[in-house]
């Protein structure tokens, strides 16, 4: 399996959440992930993209950026916005913490990303934006051959 790379940019609109999931899943499926791995990847894409739309841009105009790389059969995923940023990343990562309880947010987004991925790195600056970088090691990656 050779390395491979894609970048996606789209309007920060809720109907693009499913589009983002489908696109990353289509790219990643060349590695023959298990159904479980694919569902986990779709879920973390959904979490990070939803955060960019709701929290980053507060449902105003904006662009969401996704980068996905296949490196030695593993997946690196970067999801980025140029929105308002996170003041306290440690607090944001706490399970059940949400700044928008009135919107029925569960505060589980980052916890799910941490659970479903092998590495996560959050870089955020208020007024500049947020960048979430995640890595997932696939179980059968040494078997993948195309």
């Amino acid at each position, binding site marked *: 399996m050779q390395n491979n790379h894609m970048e996606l940019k789209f309007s920060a609109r809720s109907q693009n959440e*499913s589009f983002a999931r489908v696109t990353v899943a289509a790219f990643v499926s060349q590695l023959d992930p298990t159904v479980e791995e694919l569902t986990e990847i779709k879920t973390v894409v959904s979490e990070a993209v*939803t955060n960019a739309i*709701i929290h980053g841009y507060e449902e105003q105009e904006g662009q969401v950026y996704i980068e996905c790389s296949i490196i030695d059969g593993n997946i690196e995923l970067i999801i980025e916005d140029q929105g308002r940023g996170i003041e306290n990343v440690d607090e944001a990562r706490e399970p059940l913490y949400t700044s928008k309880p009135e919107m029925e947010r569960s505060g589980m987004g980052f916890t799910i990303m941490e659970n479903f991925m092998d590495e996560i790195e959050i870089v955020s600056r208020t007024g500049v934006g947020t960048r979430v970088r995640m890595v997932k090691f696939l179980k059968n990656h040494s078997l993948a051959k195309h």
Partner: protein
Amino acid sequence: MSLQIETAVSGDTLIVRLSGELDHHTAELVRERVEGELDRNRTPHLIMNFEGLGFMDSSGLGVILGRYKRVTAGGGRMALCSVNDQLLKLFEMSGMLKIIRIFGTESMALSETGVA
């Protein structure tokens, strides 16, 4: 639209069956529809059936917890059924399994909420 919502009433219980994909984009539909049906039917109890659901993320957790709060605030009971492994993992992570009961089928869930 990528989410379908079907509702039914059995005795004192509103049953909500979801199929398709439940995310932030579609969660609002679920919230409005379930609130509307609870208001209209005045049923205290609620069952959510996830049999047809192909995808759910934490926006789904939020909408379920929101309904749980309303139902229990009114003295009702809430149960979930037909939950696949992916959903179960999300429910577990969020601690929801400690407060909302999950059943294999709708009729098993009904035998729980149905008893006044």
